[in-house]
């Protein structure tokens, strides 16, 4: 618990850290201690990345693979949100539904999303249906849980006040319950997007004929470490962009509610 450090010092140390990391990597790759096929240097990975932007590998360019992955991701994620959020809200409002669904949900939660791959392939094939189901399996639980929490932990005084004033129940739902669950739902969506994106990569490694995950598996089969690493960079960048977008949405909504300090 050392004393605070200045912003300048913190930025400087940050750059030093990055430089050490990249320098160590580059040095190790250039030293010849490890073979180049095994560990390409960061510069080679960057070169490969830029080449992949234009040249086709495993059937498409890197943007092409990314587009294929992203399309699947969007379907699976939207499906999970469209089913998960209403289900979570209803579970939060109606105790009976909560008591019926919770045991099933708890049992299914321990099945890792990726363990659905064989059934997904069996039921929906390996084209677009199977991967969508895996994304759905990954993105669904956080949607449900957070919508549930949002609906469950509404300030009871608000509902009591509304009831006392004789507000009809559909208006209570629309004007109190729904708006006060929104922040929790948005954080759920952020977790969902992260897990969904990760599940997609897993699904594409195992069953797919296009997408970034598929490109990486092909790179691995061809012992092209640079392709694998370029794929990792691309996946990381898209994941980061998704997370930042939802984080921004979270902040905008909180600010509008006056929840940020």
């Amino acid at each position, binding site marked *: 618990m050392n004393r605070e450090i200045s912003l300048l010092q913190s930025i400087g140390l940050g750059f030093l850290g990055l430089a050490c990391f990249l320098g160590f990597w580059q040095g190790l790759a250039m030293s010849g201690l490890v073979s180049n096929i095994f560990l390409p240097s960061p510069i080679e990975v960057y070169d490969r990345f830029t080449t992949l932007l234009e040249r086709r590998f495993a059937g498409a360019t890197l943007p092409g693979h990314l587009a294929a992955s992203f399309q699947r991701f969007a379907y699976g994620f939207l499906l999970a949100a469209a089913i998960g959020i209403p289900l979570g809200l209803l579970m939060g409002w109606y105790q009976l539904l909560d008591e019926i*669904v919770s045991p099933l949900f708890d049992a299914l939660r321990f099945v890792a999303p990726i363990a659905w791959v064989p059934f997904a392939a069996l039921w929906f094939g390996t084209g677009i249906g199977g991967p969508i189901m895996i994304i759905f399996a990954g993105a669904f639980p956080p949607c449900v849980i957070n919508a549930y929490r949002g609906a469950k932990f509404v300030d009871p005084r608000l509902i009591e006040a509304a009831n006392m004033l004789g507000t009809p129940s559909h208006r209570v739902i629309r004007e109190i319950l729904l708006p006060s669950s929104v922040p929790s739902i948005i954080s759920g969506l952020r977790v969902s997007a992260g897990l969904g994106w990760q599940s997609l990569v897993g699904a594409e*490694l195992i069953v797919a004929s296009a997408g970034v995950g598929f490109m990486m598996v092909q790179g691995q089969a061809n012992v092209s470490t640079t392709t694998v690493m370029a*794929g990792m960079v691309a996946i990381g960048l898209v994941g980061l962009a998704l997370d930042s977008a939802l984080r921004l949405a979270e902040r905008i909504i909180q600010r509008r509610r006056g929840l940020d300090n």
Partner: protein
Amino acid sequence: MPRRITIGLATILSVCTLWYGLTTLFGIIPAGRFPSPAETWSALIHVSGRGYGGGDLAMHVYNSLRLVVMGFLVAIMTGVPLGLLMGWSRKAEAFINPIFLIIRPIPPLAWIPLAILWLGLGDAAKIMVIWFSAFVPSVINTYTGVRNIERPVLEAAYMLGMPKFRFVTEVMIPGASPMIFTGLRLSLQASWTTLVAAELVGAFYGLGRVLNVAQQDLYPGMILVGMIAVAILGWGTTRVLGMAEAHALRWNTAALAAKG
């Protein structure tokens, strides 16, 4: 609470009845899509007796469990100290954080092809990916836990001139431990997901291997057995961790209970 349990049991019972009805009695779900209870049972007998996908059930379970435990232990033994260090020193935080920021967005599953390239299909590659996936949550939560220790506690420790070592063991670690355990739970979940994925991509034995072979053989009963086994193991290890947490945080829950 009893009402909850009754309804829960009724739900599970009706799902089982529905399963039996749809697959066996009315045959609405074809056997090639989803197994009937009888088929699942025979698959269980098959894998635990004669064996399937290179070994019997006990061996697959043993191998998966062993890899998860090893990867998880390596991850927390490296992750928790690093988190403590980053929480302890602002300089270490400033130094390490940017590296973390660029590695963190890469999902653990994306390391699998690289791990296979580097280490092949054996145990080492699995442990490497599990390490990567379980490492990040344990670092971040430990670090957050240290940062969230209340200031007066830290100041009191300083004022009383506590030696550094005792400060770490008696203030920092206990103060951060609720968050550390949250991180461990996330790490454990990530370990299972990653292991199953890694074994599905390529392995000689393990539950993921069973799933993979069953998928290729179009053997729905065996797929279901594999999934149930993964779920039970995930649940069991989470329970063990929960017990460890309850034991380690006795003082904390006791204090909370006393406060009312």
